[in-house]
């Protein structure tokens, strides 16, 4: 008998498998009927899913692993004998008792439960994996295993994309607004400031939004339009009709400062007003200003609706039916006058652009039917407004939305800093049918709060399954302060990135919100290239030309830098600061002497580029080449020779994580290639030879 040596606890679980094996022995049919009936029942009851452990020669005595670093002992290897071996030969996901994968933390230093959780003192499978005691942690499903990394690694690791994404969502979706979540960054603005919301949108729009906060929604209330469904960051609250109406009354009463209509040049208005192509002109300018770099927009092309654009600003598909016309003009002219913490840059507008773009938004990014199903809303009574204010506070709206004169509702929800190590007995499952474990609880709570507690104040978020996985992982990783001093010593804190610009640079940087997309010394967005060392990389004159008229530098990139219509002076201020202050310590400007470059070197460099290193597989020059790296047609006007030479020697020293492979070039080859690349210049009205760059003869 194959399973004879197994401990009793294991063999009893394997019985159904054993029985089905008996089918092969052709016994009298009556017996087969009986046995297969049992097997059928057993498989229906779920036992059939149990896979047999590998037939290893189990010893009856416990096998113990001592982990001095964590001051604990573990018995996991009693059954998981393969895990005691190292190497990768037999590891695969379907074989948990296999050896460790090539993994940075070896078992002898860390044990098993530091990552897998579970009960290492138990000697029975059920006790070890799925303990019944309310104070004991069960095994963490591998799907969420990155949560364990988060226990010590408070900074993001490249190996834990799920955890990192989840932590980002905790901040992005405003979980930090209601819940304390240690180490999760609180965004500067969670929801928009509602102090003057009554001047921005109509009461009917507020009603519709509160009922179903989706940006695209058709007149019959469908959230799926042309097969496309939007997900807003604002969650849906459980509001009855009375609460809905009173909240709507309260919010539309918030009109602290009426919006003054902007006085366009009457002559300009007279020319444009009835011009047949004013909307088309507006659309063209809208595109040229790259509004979709930050704002999503649903577009229908060839009968198929899809969302294009970034995720930084709100979706604009039907914004023309949302905001008041005068407010829109005032907003575009100066967003910070309405929302001081807005990330929207303050573009430099001409009257003409402003007129045509707002006309386009109100005509094309609009849907006349969007509010047609909203019941008529009467002028609210003072009593209704007072009730609305109470609803606002009861629902915790003030956790995300500031209103002048009202205190921000911090810590509205429970503290979740240690939810990942919470005992099951502390969780409120109510009458729900959710499995009684932490993972299932968290997952249910964030996917449908009402399924756990029908009267919970927590609103319903609209999240995709991958986001739910990531959030569950991040929450399981919120294990609070380290459980023992041994672990406390090992915790790697989350670094705080800060960047304090100064001088004339600061107001320009703040006006155009450079940090929303670009990083500066680890601070800022990740949408666009890191500019921490831009002064070492780019020539000053090129920066000015680029800021005035941004061009795509990589042939396949869709997102592009907006044209802010900045003045020459502003562009020079930015370029001067970057040239002087954003310098890489590993790229000394004087490391390359361009006066030594000869035309012969450039010819030699061209040969290296085309034959030996075949750079054209990834880079384009003129009209031929690859799409992976930047277009090098104008690199001689763009980059500094010191940057190019340093880059050719070791790209990752200049940009960590760059995908350009590091080659082993000789000094002579580096110089030849630099000479060749510096000779690549496109002459155009906007490009000037920079004095600093020198000229390759």
């Amino acid at each position, binding site marked *: 008998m194959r399973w004879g040596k197994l401990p009793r606890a294991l063999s009893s679980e394997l019985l159904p498998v054993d029985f089905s094996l008996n089918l092969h022995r052709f016994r009298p049919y009556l017996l087969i009927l009986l046995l297969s009936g049992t097997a059928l029942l057993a498989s229906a009851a779920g036992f059939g899913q149990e896979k047999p452990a590998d037939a290893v020669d189990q010893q009856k005595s416990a096998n113990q692993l001592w982990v001095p670093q964590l001051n604990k002992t573990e018995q996991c290897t009693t059954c998981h004998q393969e895990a005691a071996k190292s190497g990768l030969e037999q590891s695969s*996901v379907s074989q948990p008792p296999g050896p460790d994968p090539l993994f940075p933390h070896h078992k002898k230093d860390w044990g098993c439960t530091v990552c897998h959780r579970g009960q290492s003192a138990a000697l029975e499978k059920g006790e070890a994996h799925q303990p019944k005691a309310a104070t004991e942690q069960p095994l963490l499903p591998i799907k969420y295993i990155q949560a364990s990394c988060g226990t010590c690694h408070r900074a993001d690791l490249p190996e834990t994309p799920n955890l990192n994404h989840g932590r980002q969502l905790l901040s992005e979706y405003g979980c930090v607004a209601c819940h304390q979540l240690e180490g999760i960054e609180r965004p500067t603005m969670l929801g928009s400031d509602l102090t003057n919301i009554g001047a921005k949108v109509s009461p009917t729009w507020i009603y519709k939004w509160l009922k179903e906060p989706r940006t695209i929604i058709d007149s019959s209330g469908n959230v799926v339009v042309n097969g496309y469904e939007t997900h807003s960051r604002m969650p849906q609250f459980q509001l009855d009709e009375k609460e809905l109406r009173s909240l709507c009354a309260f919010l539309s009463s918030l009109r602290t400062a009426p919006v003054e209509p902007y006085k366009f040049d009457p002559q300009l208005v007279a020319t444009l007003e009835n011009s047949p192509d004013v909307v088309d002109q507006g659309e063209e300018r809208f595109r040229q200003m790259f509004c979709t770099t930050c704002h999503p927009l649903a577009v229908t092309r060839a009968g198929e609706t899809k969302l294009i654009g970034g995720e930084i600003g709100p979706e604009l598909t039907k914004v023309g039916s949302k905001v008041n016309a005068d407010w829109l003009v005032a907003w575009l002219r100066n967003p910070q006058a309405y929302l001081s913490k807005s990330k929207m840059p303050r573009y430099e507008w001409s009257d003409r652009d402003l007129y045509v773009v707002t006309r386009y938004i109100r005509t094309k990014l609009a849907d006349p039917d969007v509010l047609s199903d909203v019941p008529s809303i009467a002028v609210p009574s003072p009593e209704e407004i007072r009730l609305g204010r109470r609803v606002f506070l009861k629902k915790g709206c003030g956790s995300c939305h500031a209103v002048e004169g009202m205190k921000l509702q911090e810590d509205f929800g429970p503290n979740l800093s240690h939810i990942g190590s919470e005992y099951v007995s502390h969780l409120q499952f109510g009458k729900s049918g959710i499995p009684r474990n932490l993972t299932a609880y968290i997952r249910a709570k964030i996917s449908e709060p009402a399924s756990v507690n029908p009267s919970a104040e927590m609103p319903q978020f609209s999240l995709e399954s991958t986001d739910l996985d990531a959030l569950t992982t991040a929450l399981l990783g919120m294990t609070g302060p380290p459980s023992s001093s041994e672990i406390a010593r090992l915790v790697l804190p989350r670094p705080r990135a800060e960047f304090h610009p100064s001088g004339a640079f600061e107001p320009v940087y703040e006006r155009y919100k450079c940090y929303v997309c670009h990083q500066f010394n680890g601070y800022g967005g990740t949408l666009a290239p890191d500019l921490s060392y831009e002064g070492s990389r780019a020539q000053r004159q090129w920066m000015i030309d680029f800021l005035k008229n941004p061009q795509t530098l990589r042939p396949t990139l869709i997102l592009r830098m907006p044209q802010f219509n900045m003045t020459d002076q502003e562009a020079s201020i930015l370029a001067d600061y970057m040239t002087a202050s954003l310098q890489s310590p590993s790229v000394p400007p004087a490391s390359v002497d361009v006066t030594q470059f000869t035309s012969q070197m450039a010819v030699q460099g061209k040969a290296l580029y085309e034959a030996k290193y075949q750079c054209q597989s990834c880079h384009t020059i003129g009209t031929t080449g690859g799409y992976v790296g930047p277009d090098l047609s104008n690199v001689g006007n763009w980059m500094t020779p010191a940057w190019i030479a340093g880059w050719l020697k070791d790209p990752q020293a200049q940009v960590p994580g760059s995908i350009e492979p590091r080659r082993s070039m000789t000094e002579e080859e580096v110089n030849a290639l630099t000479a060749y690349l510096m000779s690549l210049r496109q002459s155009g009205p906007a490009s000037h030879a920079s004095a600093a760059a020198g000229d390759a003869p």
Partner: protein
Amino acid sequence: MKTRFAIFALTLCLVAVPSAYRQRASAQDDASRHAYDVEPDWNDQQHLIPLNYQQAKGKRLFYQYCVWCHADSTPAGPSNRSNLNPVPVLMNDGATLNGQSDESLQKIVALGGSAVGKSAMMPPFGRTLTPGEILALIAYTRAIAQPPFHPSEVPISAHSGR
């Protein structure tokens, strides 16, 4: 006798069909539940391939360094693959890659195409990626290979015995 046989066959069907169904359903559940990460089969998006820690690391590196030329679509839009001559191998091309030993794949990644008599358009990554990272990439390739990779296809002497 015939009747008895019919009863037997019927019983077998009754047992086999639901249990086979259960196994398939649970295999899909298992794929995401017991895997560090998953990758949809490139030829069949509904089929999820479970990845272990090392393969998941390879996947991450693949989408950072290799996807631009070794896949037909990339996270940033059009692939550079069609731009190149000779056309690079797709990373899941089991018909081409399954017969190659780990060592030979390691060599081409680390030393580049020109070192193994292939196109110099494949640059060397040996000074950019660590040996462990290159092994992770190979493990990922093996995991997503279509037709699937079986270690026995590679001659034993050529297969790495880490």
